[in-house]
């Protein structure tokens, strides 16, 4: 697969604040690539640089072989962008809104008519054609904004927090829409701090925090690469000192990296071992006299992965003393 979006050592600094401190991304054509990170991690900055809206302080960014700095106009032609916050014009009907952006891309009248019809069908707004844009619901505006980013049939879509502010139903609809777009061959770069949203959708992710990419690649690859082991949860029928003794027992076992008592009394165990060793640990615990009510492997999901990855490094200071 060919790379379609590439950034190298992307840095954006505002006076004393560093928004991103060297972001490297490599996104193959046809992927749905998730940019995950907490608020303030640098997701929006990265997307805005790719969308030619911000100049990086240093570093390179390329889309479809065009440099974002040197050929912004070429980049804009292959790019559809949906910002995290966007407004709509008053006094504009839905079809006029799309017509306006289609004109901005220099589409001739016949093509505009056809594409507006197609896009309204795609985002399921065909019956809202004559409605004023400000009269649409938030979810509909979001879909209209997505449609506007598609008028020129771009190769790459940059979506900044597309699901924020949407109700669950609208979210599902959006997800379906993005899947459909992927089948149309679009490469989609999507940012979010809501992880489950991306997990079901993305083929690859990059986890960013404090302006750096902490891990990137296929979700399963990252899991394999970064996971110290699995997280086990044991519910022991004990409290106070006996619970503490149980925790101590677990902590002393081989392959156990950590053991902690959670607020609900469950002991969470960071375990490096594989499944047979997990079985052995449970057997030994029972044999050792611990009253274990439940014992399970915590579900591995992106959220957990994310917490693990971002927890690895002490958060990089984003303030640079100067």
């Amino acid at each position, binding site marked *: 697969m060919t790379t379609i979006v590439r950034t190298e050592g992307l840095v954006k600094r505002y006076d004393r604040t560093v928004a991103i401190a060297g972001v490297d991304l490599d996104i193959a054509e046809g992927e749905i690539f998730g940019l995950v990170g907490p608020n303030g991690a640098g997701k*929006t900055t990265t997307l805005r640089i790719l969308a030619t809206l911000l100049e990086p302080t240093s570093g390179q960014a390329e889309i479809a072989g065009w440099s974002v700095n040197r050929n912004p106009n070429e980049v804009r032609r292959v790019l559809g962008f949906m910002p995290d916050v966007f407004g*709509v014009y008053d006094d504009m009907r839905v079809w006029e809104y799309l017509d*306006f952006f289609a*004109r901005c891309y*220099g589409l001739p009248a016949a093509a505009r008519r056809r594409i507006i019809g197609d896009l309204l069908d795609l985002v399921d707004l065909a019956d809202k054609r004559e409605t004023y844009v400000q009269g649409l619901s938030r979810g509909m505006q979001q879909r209209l904004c997505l449609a506007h980013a598609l008028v020129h049939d771009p190769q790459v879509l940059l979506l900044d927090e597309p699901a924020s502010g949407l109700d669950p139903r609208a979210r599902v609809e959006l997800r379906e829409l993005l899947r459909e777009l992927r089948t149309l061959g679009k490469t989609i770069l999507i940012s979010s701090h809501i992880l489950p949203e991306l997990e079901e959708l993305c083929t690859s992710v990059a986890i960013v925090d404090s302006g750096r990419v902490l891990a990137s690649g296929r979700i399963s690859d990252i899991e394999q690469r970064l996971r110290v082991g699995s997280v086990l949860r044991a519910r022991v029928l004990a409290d106070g000192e006996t619970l503490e003794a149980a925790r101590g027992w677990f902590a002393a076992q081989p392959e156990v990296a950590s053991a902690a008592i959670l607020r609900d009394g469950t002991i969470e165990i960071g375990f490096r071992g594989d499944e047979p060793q997990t079985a052995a640990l449970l057997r030994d615990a029972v044999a050792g006299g611990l009253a274990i009510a439940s014992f399970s492997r915590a579900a591995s999901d992106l959220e957990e992965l994310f917490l693990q990855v971002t927890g690895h490094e002490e958060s990089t200071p984003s303030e640079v003393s100067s």
Partner: protein
Amino acid sequence: MIAALRARRPRISMPGITAIGVKELRGRMRGRRAFVSVTVYVLIVAGFTWMVGRILEDSARQQFGFNPQFQSASIGRGIFAALMFLQTLMISVLAPASTAGTISGERERQTLDLLVVTPISSVAIVVGKLLSSLTWVFVLITASIPVAALVFVYGGVAPDDVLRGYLVLFVTAIAFGALGTFFSALVRRSGAATGLTFVAVLVSTVGLSFIWVFLRASSAFQVNAAGVPTADRPAEALVYLNPFVAQVDVACGAEGGTGSWCQIIAEVTGDPSVVNQGGGVVAPVAVPLGKGGVVVNGGAPVVVNDVAPTIGGQRDRYWPRSVLVLLLLALALTAAAVQLITPTRRWRPTRPRVRRGRRTEGTL
């Protein structure tokens, strides 16, 4: 693929302007609003013209000993001048008001980003917005032409005078419109942009002209070694940005180069022919007033009474310069506005940059 992209990459400056123009005009001309505003504008202009006409007619009736034809012509000129001043005043308010929110409004509604990521250039965005706002103002101005044509009933004003007056009006709209666009691009909030624009309009009209009057007053009593008042007056360029003075010159042209409006222009331009000396009668002069004309400073000022005025003696000496300067200002302001909204620009004012940084930081 790259070659294909290059091949289908048209310069879409014009489509960009068209796109913005169509969108803006659709919004502006939708519904009754446009119709109502044109009607109100024309009604104000017509009502004012009618009132001025009544006043001038009444005062003419009280005078006697004048040739009625001459009186009619004088009423015509009076109405014409009044009409042009009123319209200059209205356009000086309406043109900046219609542009001051265009770009800041996009920022406030958070739609500017959507626009900037399309391939239309910043030039197209600024020029498209300016032109579409101005189109509305131009419609108003044009709608008043039939009212202005009423002066021909009285006479005293030639069609080319009306043409000059309207040219100055259109340029006023362009210059003050560009001023509004500039502040709209500079400041985030539309309210602040509108406020700053009106302050700038006031400075360029009332403010600079008042400075001119002040400087003129302080130099009025200076005499040279021979005891002759020096014609050391402030530069006329100080009032180039005041379209009212340009309209005074147009009115002067309608007077055939002589008359009370011309005296104001003579005062501004320092025209030697009307330098007042020792309480003598200020009078127009029949000497050619081109370059190398009568030198005042150090020499004897020419004071001529009762000389038959030469038609066109002072015509078109001042307003074309004012119009040129206003157009240059509009051009410079438009270019600056383009710079301000180009995201990847080299130059950036310091303060907005800091603010922008913080803001973006907050929305990461």
